[in-house]
């Protein structure tokens, strides 16, 4: 579906969708704070316009915002996301430990985040080829294959 949307509009469209969902959540919640949904819509619109304009600039951030990153910019983005995920995992672990220490009931969001980051990492290892060990190309020659580590 994302490929149907022009590259420069992809990130703004994603942020617009997220903002709409957030605003809808406040509206559905109702009560005295319904106006937060209006604020959310205004801030979303400002951010979407800023993101669209950024996508037209000749910068690393512009390339990412405009969905036209080259290999270096993709690598930077990938590393940043990996760092964010590491921080999320560490923060979740600290939060979980603190919640257990004070016998709090709010331990589960930390546990869920920790499980998601942990299993996400394992899923990534499986998906991106760690399991592709294959057969050594000298397996049928009868030669002894030397292990990489001495026993």
């Amino acid at each position, binding site marked *: 579906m994302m490929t149907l949307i022009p590259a420069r509009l992809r990130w703004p469209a994603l942020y617009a969708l997220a903002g709409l969902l957030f605003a809808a959540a406040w509206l559905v919640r109702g009560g005295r704070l319904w106006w937060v949904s209006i604020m959310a819509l205004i801030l979303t619109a400002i951010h979407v316009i800023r993101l669209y304009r950024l996508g037209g600039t000749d910068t690393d951030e512009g390339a990412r915002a405009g969905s036209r990153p*080259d290999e270096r910019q993709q690598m930077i983005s990938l590393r940043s996301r990996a760092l964010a995920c590491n921080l999320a995992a560490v923060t979740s672990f600290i939060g979980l430990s603190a919640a257990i220490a004070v016998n709090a009931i709010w331990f589960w969001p930390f546990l869920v985040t920790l499980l998601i980051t942990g299993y996400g990492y394992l899923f990534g290892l499986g998906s991106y080829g760690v399991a592709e060990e294959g057969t050594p190309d000298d397996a049928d020659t009868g030669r002894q294959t030397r292990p990489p580590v001495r026993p």
Partner: protein
Amino acid sequence: MRNRVREQRTQRGLSQAELAAALGVSRQTVISIESGRYLPSLPLAFTIARFFDLTVDKMFDPDDEEAGP
């Protein structure tokens, strides 16, 4: 790893933006490669070498640890 991207580019009278457009990468990436801050992938290294009619080992010298020209 030292490379000859800047030298070859200036010899041909190209700007960084023109080289970037020819290679299909951003101007910032050309700057990073020239300064030695970014080592290109193997496909991009071949693209650069072919663009300048050189071999990869002529374009990128792994024996020289000095970063940048």
